[in-house]
């Protein structure tokens, strides 16, 4: 009888440890902002899929480049046709982990500073990045946000000489996602 109880307890332990706690969104937000003396350029994308595994710290983002919306239709056209080449490189992705997962207590409401490290793929070029962010826990729900910078040239995005002064060498990306728990 004791042996059976021990086996049941052991198997329960294995089950609990292998049950991932997954949170996801399919309408997260990523926006970017470029500022030069010539002009400010900004665009937003609200069709971002993101998943967090709170057991392992794995975190992923995926978006379609042609879903970035600009106020000016011509800017949007140039962004897709000339800079991102969205027909050739339809998606941008990030896969990584929350480096300081142990600092987060999902059972306690609060705003937790996090560091996210992983691979950022834009325009077909992958770069390792490590960026700061915040994970907010409130009433069982979680949200994540982060603002960091990237250089278009690091992802082989060519800026024609004619508009070189209109687009900043460093562009600011802002990520904002509200997650729901996956059943």
């Amino acid at each position: 009888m004791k042996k059976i109880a021990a086996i049941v307890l052991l198997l329960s332990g294995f089950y609990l440890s292998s049950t991932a706690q997954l949170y996801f969104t399919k309408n997260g937000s990523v926006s970017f902002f470029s500022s030069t003396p010539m002009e400010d350029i900004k665009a937003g994308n609200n069709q971002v899929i993101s998943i967090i595994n709170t057991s392992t710290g794995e975190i992923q983002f995926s978006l379609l480049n042609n879903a970035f919306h600009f106020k000016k239709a011509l800017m949007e056209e140039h962004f897709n046709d000339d800079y991102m080449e969205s027909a050739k490189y339809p998606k941008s992705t990030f896969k990584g982990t929350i480096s300081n997962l142990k600092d987060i207590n999902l059972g306690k409401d609060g705003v937790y500073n996090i560091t996210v490290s992983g691979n950022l793929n834009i325009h077909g070029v992958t770069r390792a990045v490590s960026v700061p962010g915040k994970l907010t826990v409130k009433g069982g729900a979680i949200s994540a946000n982060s603002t960091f910078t990237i250089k278009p040239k690091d992802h082989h995005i060519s800026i024609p000489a004619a508009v070189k002064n209109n687009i900043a060498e460093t562009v600011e990306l802002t990520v904002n996602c509200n997650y729901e728990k996956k059943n």
Partner: protein
Amino acid sequence: MSKKKIVLISAIVLVGAAALTAYMMWNKPHKDVKDTDGLQIAAAELYNLYISDSVKARSLYSDKIVQVTGEVAKVSANQLNQQVVLIKTTVAGAYINCTMEETDAAAKEGSTITIKGICSGYISGDADMGLPGDVFIVRGYSFTK
């Protein structure tokens, strides 16, 4: 009229035309979705094509105005307070994910809906984590009768 005057006036007209063209291009409006016919397709058919033949699906539907019909799974709002309508497909947890340009107050879970918008394409989820992807529609308008 002297030759010089003709040349001068012609130059002014040409420069003016070029400036006007540049101004109109710079300020050209976004694609008109509401008053343009869309490619009609059922939600399940659109989703199944993207997951079975993504090349064909992209050539037929990505960046095109589509008119998708199906059953509403969920209605919510995104961070910009735009209505988001999820239309069911044949895959559990996978949807035609429509961000609306105009809110449809009649859209409710279980109702049949037709939404016209621009198809951005398909983003896969994560098979290991059991999350299927969605096909995304932006600038959606409801045309449910």
